[in-house]
């Protein structure tokens, strides 16, 4: 049977991009994330699912230290990006975020032109030496985000004038423009209609060829559709982490089963 082409799934293990071990997160006195160990593979879509308040977004935000902006938030444990602890004192979070890009729940383009939205990251990181190079980066990023054909004639138009789905793809273009290695997505489709959602999901599947993508989603179906690995969080614990098909057809932990079959919320 070895010659048969099976449906896509990660059979052979890939390089580990992010390795988190024994991660604890506290919000003031609340213990939001408890003993989370997870290994995120390169060129793979990893989905975090779980009920509201289970800590999946919190954990996602630990991966590029967006939690630093919240004063009362404390992170313990090791999160290694390519073997380097991102919470090391020597690490500058700004530099880290250029490597670990982020796309947010609500499409949040800057109230500037489409071009400036994408060009912003490369500009502040000095990725382009001149205008021609910058143009090239902008075009490449917009193409990669599968939105180039829709906006190429109106790069000067404000990014806020696009439809919701286009805005979100613009935000993805903005995120990939800085050439990140990991792309974090915090419920990127929750504000979009089903068609726009499908387009963004298709894009995520496309991005998997180049990046390690981590997506937090409320929609189990979305996790099922886009991811190869799924992590189920519940009450701050990582309950189960495994191959997506296995999680959705035959989960190991009874809590996972209850959640994905709609028995606990």
């Amino acid at each position, binding site marked *: *049977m070895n010659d*048969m*082409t*099976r*449906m*896509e799934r990660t059979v052979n293990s890939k390089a580990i991009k992010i390795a988190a071990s024994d991660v604890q997160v506290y919000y003031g006195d609340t213990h939001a994330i408890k003993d989370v160990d997870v290994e995120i593979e390169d060129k793979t879509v990893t989905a975090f699912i779980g009920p509201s308040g289970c800590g999946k977004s919190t954990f996602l935000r630990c991966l590029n230290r967006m939690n630093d902006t919240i004063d009362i938030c404390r992170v313990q444990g090791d999160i290694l990006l390519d073997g380097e602890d991102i919470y090391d004192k020597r690490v500058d979070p700004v530099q880290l975020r250029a490597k670990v890009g982020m796309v947010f729940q609500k499409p949040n383009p800057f109230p500037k032109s489409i071009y400036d939205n994408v060009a912003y990251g490369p500009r502040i990181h000095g990725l382009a030496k001149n205008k021609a190079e910058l143009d090239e980066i902008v075009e490449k990023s917009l193409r990669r985000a599968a939105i180039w054909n829709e906006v190429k004639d109106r790069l000067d138009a404000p990014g806020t004038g696009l439809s919701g789905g286009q805005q979100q793809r613009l935000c993805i273009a903005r995120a990939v423009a800085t050439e990140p290695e990991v792309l974090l997505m915090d419920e990127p489709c929750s504000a979009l209609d089903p*068609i726009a959602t*499908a*387009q963004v*999901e*298709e894009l995520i*599947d496309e991005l998997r060829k180049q990046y390690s993508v981590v997506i937090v989603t409320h929609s189990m*179906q979305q996790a*099922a*559709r886009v991811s190869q690995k799924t992590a189920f969080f519940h009450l701050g614990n990582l309950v189960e982490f495994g191959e*997506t*098909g296995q999680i*959705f*057809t035959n989960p190991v932990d009874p809590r996972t089963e209850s959640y994905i079959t709609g028995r606990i919320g």
Partner: protein
Amino acid sequence: MTEQHIASAFDRDLETIQAHIMKMGGLVEAAIMGAARSLETRDEELAQQVRQGDKAIDALEDVINEETARLIALRAPTAGDLRLVLSVLKVSANLERIGDYSKNIAKRTTVLTNASEINGSAAALRRMAREVEVMLRDALDAYIQRDAELAADVIVRDEEVDQMYNGLFRELLTFMAEDPRNISSCMHLHFIAKNIERMGDHVTAIAEQVVYLVTGERPTEARPKADTTSQTA
């Protein structure tokens, strides 16, 4: 169904499953023909191959079941996609049964090689098997091309298989009445004939799945039944 899904991975998954079905169909066709030929030529080796080959068919059915369950869990198919996925399950189950019958024929072939030949029955069985094999090929073509008309044609053709079976049934009865020493062989030959007749029914079921897949409705007209042996006294 010519349009693509926005999620191209969904299309790839559906194609993968259908490719499995076609592969399974090919194996089953080969099994039918192998069984029939081994019977006619008393080729024990070929019969052995057919019996071995059934393992691959069974394994393929497992794979299809697993992949289909996965697809339902991950993609939540609806409408035409849902009918396709449901039909895949039924078609693979029917194919698996046909494979089992082929294997059963091959088993009996081993016994029959050592018995005396019953006049002309082997050729009749081969024709019958040939007919079923063509029907299966047409049913699978109809499935791939979403051709409801061809499928309906296959359903009608099952009548011929039933009639061939009726003829063989009477013939074998006659042989057994003539000479009790033939009974053992004739019983085996009868089971083989019955197996082929059942294969025809399973092919018909596949064709019905094609009609359902294309139109969304079960075939309405009662399917032709020409197997009258149950009334034969």
